[in-house]
């Protein structure tokens, strides 16, 4: 079997899903022996996936214009897009802010918090701008596989990658399909 190139990004998430990925432990070695090649990921600290990457894994919801660019680039460069975890799949915890106007939210976060002195809302162009609404990844690009869970179990991630490596389309069921 040839190599299967995997890239991943971390948008509006907590990194828990990547932790769960690492939680596959020695099974990661097994997958690598089977042909999994880990390319641009927060783990390898490379940001731009190669063209023609086979699997693009996205952790986190789409909350800012930067996230939007990132997931669009993933879509362009990867054959199969996997939404990993509740934030990417459903929008998850970051969607909490959808019910509060953006200005009010930033004001509260950066200025009126009890512990803040001389607060200021950051304006650097390096920081992404909040979209009007935090979205699940499938509201922005087409997603091929969904792995819900907060975070999804290492078992679920292992199952999905193994199935893809062996040329099947994974379908999560039973203990592997969890919304929390």
């Amino acid at each position, binding site marked *: 079997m040839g190599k299967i190139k995997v890239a991943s990004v971390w948008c509006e998430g907590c990194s828990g899903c990547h932790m769960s990925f690492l939680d596959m432990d020695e099974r990661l070695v097994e997958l690598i022996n089977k042909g999994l090649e880990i390319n641009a990921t927060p783990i390898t600290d490379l940001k731009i996936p190669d063209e023609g990457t086979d699997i693009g894994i996205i952790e986190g919801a789409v909350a800012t214009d930067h996230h939007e660019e990132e997931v669009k680039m993933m879509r362009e460069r990867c054959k199969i897009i996997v*939404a990993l975890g*509740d934030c990417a*799949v*459903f*929008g*998850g*915890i970051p*969607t909490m802010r*959808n*019910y509060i106007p953006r200005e009010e939210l930033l004001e509260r976060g950066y200025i009126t918090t009890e512990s803040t002195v001389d607060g200021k809302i950051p304006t650097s162009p390096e920081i992404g701008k909040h979209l009007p*609404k935090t*979205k*699940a990844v*499938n*509201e922005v690009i087409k*997603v091929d596989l*969904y*792995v*819900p869970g*907060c975070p999804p179990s290492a078992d679920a991630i292992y199952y999905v990658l193994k199935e893809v490596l062996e040329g099947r389309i994974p*379908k*999560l*069921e039973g203990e592997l*399909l969890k*919304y*929390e």
Partner: protein
Amino acid sequence: MENIKIKVNGNEVEVSPGKTVLQVLKDLGIHVPVLCHYEPLMPQGSCRLCVVEDRGVLKTACTTPVEPNMDIKTDTPNVINSRKLVLQLLFSERNHYCMYCEVTGECELQDLGYEFGLDHFEFPTYERRFPVDNTHDFIMMDHNRCVLCRRCVRVCSEVAGHFVLGEMERGIDTMIIADMDVPLGNSSCVSCGLCAQVCPTGAIIDKRSSYLGREVQSEIIYSNCDMCPVGCGMEIYKKQGANFIVKIYGDWNSDVSHGLLCKVGRYLSLYDEKDRVVGIKLKDDFGYRRLHEDNLIEIFKNKLNNAVAYVDGSLFNEEIEMIKEIFKDKVYSLYPNNSPIPTNINLSELDNKEFYVVINADLNREYGAVGSIVKRNVIGKKAKLMVIDKEFNSLAKIADYVFNIKDPNLAMDILKKQKEVVVIYKDITEEEKNLLSSLNNAKFLHLPKETNSIGLQKYDIKHEKVEAENVFIFGKNLEGIKDLPIQNSFVVVFTPYEDEVLRRADLIVGITNGFEREGSFYNLEGKKLKKEKVLKPDFDVLDLKSFLSTVLGKTEKVF
């Protein structure tokens, strides 16, 4: 009626007419997902999860009666896709992000999501924010989790009889409301908790049980409520390996209450905050001193000469029997316990009557389960209601006739004209008793004051005040001690709760209570019911039943 022939998934079956497609499929062991459907409630066919195909047409199994020549298919792509679409719509209409939800892990909507392999939302969600109503003492309503199945509305009317919940607006704008859209805490809700029990999602949750644990982590114990003489069937969820109760549900299979419970049984029995009597305390010149358990039996036996016992209706049959054995029939009741007119109707027969008379009992506040039965017939089925009370009675506002006790003749004239009346009464005078007894079209249900009043009657324990050198009192409600002729007696009290009048006692013994003790009692219908022991006492208290059997030499060890 003759059986009819239909086809189910290609096989011919004979079924009895009058059944719904859902019932037939269930009998055949074919699983059909449901959401709005709930067994004791009228089916309404609104969620469309139970759809099946009949000759190419999708029909809701829960509301469609079987007809000859039906050709039912339960697993065609049309059926499965239609159910999946409904689920997708349900998940995205409001906020069903399970991570935050109190019922995740035992939610019927979530289970359906898993069953159909739903692994993402197909429609944009979290578009609207719905209110959360936290004004009620015992339940919280989070409209963000509501799937508009109307189980709560139906159970509150059809079963609980309170007609508090309803709905407003239409379509996806529908909101479940209390009364004329007031906060639940300000509404006419009587806190029976049935709506929270039947809600399939996290839209109505029981505040106390929140986050205490899941049903799968609980041991289920079936018991009867002993907070009043109704004795409703309880399904008690006790956390496995722990000493606390997660929640209490009404038991649909109880042949007393058929699922009903009231605020007292479901909630107040778990919120007991009264001070407990701890240990064994003997009065001496300096006040009370704690006595060792071993000394108690000795003192107890020494004082049995020239002794009488008083009991109240909180005692179980087993305890009463042993007290009778020990005190050689010198046992008296602290309170009157007779039924002026004997009960001749049971709770299961109480529905579907045309005329109810309620005397001196506010059934919204006490005997809640009886109140539910009366109200669901009066409000739901237009039965007539007459309320006779010396005091304010909240049932008066739904009554057709309200009488003050002073004009009995007018009431009697109306009652005599009825085909049949059911008289549900608490305290009545001798004169009222005579009047009512003269009705030959009446059934009577007496509401005794104490849980086991009927038990005391059966054991022939009379309410008398007798003097004796040593007086033993057993019970929960000690009010009656004040009227006893005990000025010169040595007074021993076995009781669970601290009370002012205990100052009069020479020896005080703290005993088990509520879910810490087991035993049987006779409810108001005269049915013998069992209360189970669910918890270990948190205090140093004595179990009366074991103590008495040790005194009688029946068991070795008491503590």
